């Protein structure tokens, strides 16, 4: 056996003896570290999951970025290709969006004596497959698309239009704009309390044909994940890439999301820090006893030629092993705990976040090393001072 292998073997031998010298104390330290790791892992998992959950909750409110034609002319439209270019430039996996064309048409039914003028909205919620905007309209159009593929165009009618025309699903509606006429079958009536109540929603291509604006759109709605700063960066980048359009960030949503997340995050971070500090104090209390027990051992080790560094290496490695063991056990338990807590707080179990596991284990190791402070202090004392009982 070469020199370093022999010494490594001796190092492991001493370490094993150190760890199992007092099994009761080992259990107490492991328990403290595991409990600390469990609670901190649970809180960290909730914190990470809260961001995702809030993003998802806020996304359901609708878009946070609108792309429109220049404000100089309200009749102006955009080339539909722009929406595809935007998606090419964006992170297609995260940005969701929809395009719409607004036109005014005479809407009539066989039950109404006179036609009424209504806004007809052509809607395409599938700029990129699988990345539809999350909104009630988008949800409706998701089903609408599959119905449309079977034959005559379908439409969704706002509650007020439905009332004036005395018509409901599944009747046929006639839409006229100039000399262009089309019909659609009503599949649903919606009441949102907003402008949708006065609109007739059809597929984008139907509206484009009615308005005689093939390949044109009035609006691109985007849902961009991230905080207000990320949103601002994204909109600035759009402005520079597409100087001919107007980009309007709807900041109140992202700011509200950031505010709520910041509060939740701050609370959870403070709680985690407090738990880790308490764990460190518990470990430190146990280590103070160990330091008292090992006072003579440290004095003797130094007296027979042990440097502070080598003695400290033993104690720190012991602390790291304890931290690792406590962290691995506790963090696993904590992530499971967070799923239960998540259910209690958000009504849905928090998804286990893998990143939380190594972070919690690393934090527990750091806590164990900090908790070993009494031992670190002891190894720097002169042996004679220890033997005199002054350390």
């Amino acid at each position, binding site marked *: 056996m070469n020199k370093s292998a022999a010494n490594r073997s*001796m190092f492991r031998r001493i370490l094993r*003896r150190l760890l199992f010298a007092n099994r009761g104390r080992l259990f107490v330290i492991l328990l403290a570290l595991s409990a600390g790791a469990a609670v901190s892992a649970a809180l960290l998992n909730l914190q990470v999951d809260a961001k995702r959950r809030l993003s998802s909750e806020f996304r359901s409110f609708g878009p946070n970025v609108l792309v429109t034609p220049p404000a100089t002319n309200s009749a102006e439209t955009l080339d539909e290709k722009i929406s595809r270019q935007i998606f090419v430039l964006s992170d297609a996996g995260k940005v969701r969006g929809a395009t719409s064309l607004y036109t005014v048409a005479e809407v009539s039914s066989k039950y109404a004596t006179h036609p009424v003028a209504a806004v007809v909205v052509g809607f395409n919620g599938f700029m990129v497959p699988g990345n539809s905007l999350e909104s009630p309209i988008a949800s409706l159009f998701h089903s609408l698309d599959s119905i449309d593929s079977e034959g005559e165009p379908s439409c969704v009618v706002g509650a007020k239009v439905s009332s004036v025309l005395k018509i409901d699903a599944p009747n046929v509606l006639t839409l006229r704009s100039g000399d262009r006429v089309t019909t659609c079958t009503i599949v649903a009536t919606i009441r949102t309390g907003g402008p949708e109540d006065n609109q007739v929603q059809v597929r984008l291509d139907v509206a484009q044909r009615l308005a005689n604006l093939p390949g044109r759109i009035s609006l691109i709605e985007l849902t961009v994940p991230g905080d207000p700063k990320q949103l601002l960066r994204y909109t600035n980048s759009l402005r520079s890439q597409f100087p001919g359009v107007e980009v309007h960030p709807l900041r109140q949503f992202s700011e509200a999301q950031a505010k709520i997340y910041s509060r939740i995050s701050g609370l959870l971070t403070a709680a985690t820090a407090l738990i880790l500090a308490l764990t460190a104090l518990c470990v430190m209390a146990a280590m103070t006893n160990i330091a008292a027990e090992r006072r003579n051992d440290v*004095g*003797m080790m130094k007296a*027979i030629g042990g*440097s502070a560094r080598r003695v400290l290496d033993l104690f720190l490695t012991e602390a790291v092993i304890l931290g690792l063991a406590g962290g691995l056990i506790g963090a696993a338990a904590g992530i499971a705990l967070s799923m239960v807590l998540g259910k209690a707080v958000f009504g849905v179990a928090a998804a286990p976040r893998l990143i939380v596991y190594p972070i919690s284990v690393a934090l527990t190791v750091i806590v164990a090393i900090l908790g070993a402070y009494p031992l670190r202090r002891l190894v720097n004392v002169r042996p004679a001072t220890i033997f005199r009982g002054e350390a």
Partner: protein
Amino acid sequence: MTTQPLVNPAASLAPAPQSPPQVVLENLVKEYGTLRALGGVSFDIQPGEWIALMGPSGSGKTTLINILGGLDTATSGRVTVNGEDVTRLGESDLVRYRAEKIGFVFQQFHLVPYLTALENVMLAQYFHSVTDESQAVEALKRVGLADRLDHLPAKLSGGEQQRVAIARALINQPKLILADEPTGNLDEANEGIVINIFRELHHAGHTILMVTHDVDIARNASRRIELTHGHLTLDTTCNFLEQPKLCPHGKPFPSSGCCSTLDSKSCTP
């Protein structure tokens, strides 16, 4: 209990009178705040000497041995061991000095309680350079503990623990053995065993400085030094059966056959 001889008896050597001193203490002072533990102690130690360091409690014996072993620092004065000024060594050099040149044997044994007898000896090897289990086993066999290798200190008698401590002190072949009342906690039988080991070490040419209160043990030493209140009050190679007398200044030295080196010039008739 049988112990193997620690050395080949033929290799026994007596200190060479003219050889340069192995240890030189010059005006060594140690103060703890206002308390002066050592008040300017000076003497030399020749290679191979066995010195019994005596004196009442609080006379500075342990302080002196701690400074000599690099466990404590002197307030002033100089300690030279094999030409190396110990009082000027930095922390890392002191660690090396303790590991390579000094073998400590304490009254309280100071064995690591969670390491076996064998591991306690190997610990000294580990801090010195490299562990060698067979060498450590051999060292324990020499002090008669071949059948106690895997015993924890708590399972050993006081005498056995002290023999482990001696094996640990010797494993790195130190130039100077410092023993602080090594038999202070032992019964008569174990005391005899331990003193026999020291006798063999002395015959093997090891330099030993042993703190003791026991005149019978001190009688084994080749020289006796006494401290009182931090001052050297006796330094003699006399046969201790005849209690040597101190020479007060200006008084004739008694022609008892004693050869005190302390202030001998002024004591000369």
